[in-house]
């Protein structure tokens, strides 16, 4: 019982901290915190697929980027109101996932990784090459933030908007992974054949997980489009997908909170270390190697190990 109380207390403390943040941080840091939240959601969306269902995707940026481009195209090219573009972006990401899933699910393991990589690179090359539609490499600026009666141009206002959206999304994700559906996903991760022998239509579960994961990635992508007020092909590039993968692994796959923490840590470190030295890439690389050696189950794995050792005493 007390373990549960501690978790609730911890979650409440984090929530209070997140809400109070803008009061004692300067504008630059608030913006950074916003970016951390956005990528935390992106990482969690991938965790649903990778950590819970056992499918490692190297193409998750596709849904992130499709959502972002949907926002940009609707707002900049079609003059649609920014707020309306948001659900459209979500839908676009989900549809992309729904279309890619049957193709990718023809494979498992490394081959699944490769197909998702290939599919997202195709989307990237369309965004990169179709200059008349997307401006290609130059990207699309002037993406206006939604206006719900009050402007979100203020950094703190946008932070709270992001916090609300990410918060709702996190609650939904947590509910999904705790549900019987979530349990089934983990069963599939552990042994597909066992699940089939128990009567589960494994493909259908993987399909739904794939589409849900794409939808949540889309939410993050739309938020990022608003955040930068700009969308470019790098949103879709494999580097973005690889970053998401690294965030999940670093934080601890299959825990939801791990990838969120991993994302926050990486976004923060990228910013912090690059302000200290121009060799921040080197430092990051060393950190990744060290984390792998000392925390192979990710940062959350470290925390769990420490908790287990404490409770054993």
């Amino acid at each position: 019982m007390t373990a549960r109380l501690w978790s609730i207390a911890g979650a409440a403390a984090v929530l209070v901290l997140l809400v109070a943040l803008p009061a004692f941080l300067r504008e630059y840091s608030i913006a950074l915190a916003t970016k951390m939240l956005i990528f935390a959601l992106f990482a969690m969306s991938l965790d649903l697929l990778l950590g819970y269902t056992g499918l490692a995707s190297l193409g998750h940026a596709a849904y992130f980027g499709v959502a972002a481009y949907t926002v940009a195209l609707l707002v900049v090219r079609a003059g649609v109101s920014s707020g309306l573009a948001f659900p459209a972006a979500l839908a676009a990401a989900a549809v992309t996932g729904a279309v890619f899933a049957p193709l990718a699910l023809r494979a498992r393991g490394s081959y699944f990784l490769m197909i998702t990589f290939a599919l997202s690179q195709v989307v990237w090359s369309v965004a990169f090459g179709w200059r008349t539609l997307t401006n290609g490499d130059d990207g699309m600026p002037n993406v206006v933030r939604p206006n719900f009666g009050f402007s979100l141009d203020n950094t703190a206002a946008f932070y709270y908007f992001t916090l609300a959206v990410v918060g709702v999304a996190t609650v939904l994700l947590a509910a999904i992974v705790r549900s019987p559906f979530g349990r089934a996903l983990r069963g599939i991760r552990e042994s597909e054949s066992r699940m089939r022998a128990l009567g589960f239509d494994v493909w259908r579960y993987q399909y739904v997980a794939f589409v849900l994961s794409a939808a949540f990635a889309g939410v993050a992508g739309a938020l990022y489009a608003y955040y930068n007020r700009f969308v470019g092909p790098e949103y879709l590039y494999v580097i973005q997908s690889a970053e998401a993968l690294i965030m999940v692994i670093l934080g601890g796959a299959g825990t939801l909170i791990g990838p969120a923490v991993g994302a926050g840590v990486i976004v923060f470190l990228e910013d912090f270390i690059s302000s200290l030295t121009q060799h921040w890439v080197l430092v990051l690389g060393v950190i990744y190697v060290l984390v792998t050696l000392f925390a192979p189950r990710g940062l959350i794995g470290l925390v769990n190990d420490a908790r287990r050792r404490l409770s054993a005493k």
Partner: protein
Amino acid sequence: MTALTIDNVSKNFGGVAALSGISLDIESGERRVLLGPNGAGKTTLFHTISGNVVPSAGRIMLFGADITRLRPDRRARLGLARTFQITNLFPRLTVLESVLLALDGASGCGMRLVASPSNARVMDMQAHGLLERWGLAEASSRIVRTLSYGEQRQLEIALALAGKPRLLLLDEPTAGLSPAETRRVVAMVHELPRDMTIVMIEHDMDVAFELADRIAVMHLGRLIAEGDQAAIRSNQQVTDIYLGAE
């Protein structure tokens, strides 16, 4: 009613005939044991029954329905359950979660993204009941891969039984178990309801003869003898194979 009809089933793996023209009828409620030396094709036959392998020829009927090409999960929903020769569990899940999954799978409820609390309570009780019966109650919150081999084999069987199957396939349920553990498994199988049909692959002759109503003996992919215990014991071919195989 015939629970399981295997009609002239053959299976070739790239030129190797794993099964050749196997025909078997298993009556509802029967306890059938499959005997045979290693490589006889017993597990392959199980795979064709459970749907993990599609036969090259022949038909398989479950309670009158042709399931020859049906997917494994569809067969499970028709009331078929199996254990695996090589333990096939969920290494990183807990024992309780494994049983809850087995109950979920059997309930045919479909995907549930939301769990109603009352439903969860009922399933929880069912799960604990199952674990009690199989002596795994204390282990319910343990992670599966930390269980001993014997406990894992017990869990294999418990998972297969969770859905109250009509046909149960047990693939070497006592393999690698201590005599005490074997006794327990045999006792459990004895206690299973008589309306459940059970087909077992066994190597332990004592267990086989204790549990079987009828026995089928396979060798090199063929069915070479079939009958009750007395018939099998007095079958010269069978003795030759087992003495020759030693």
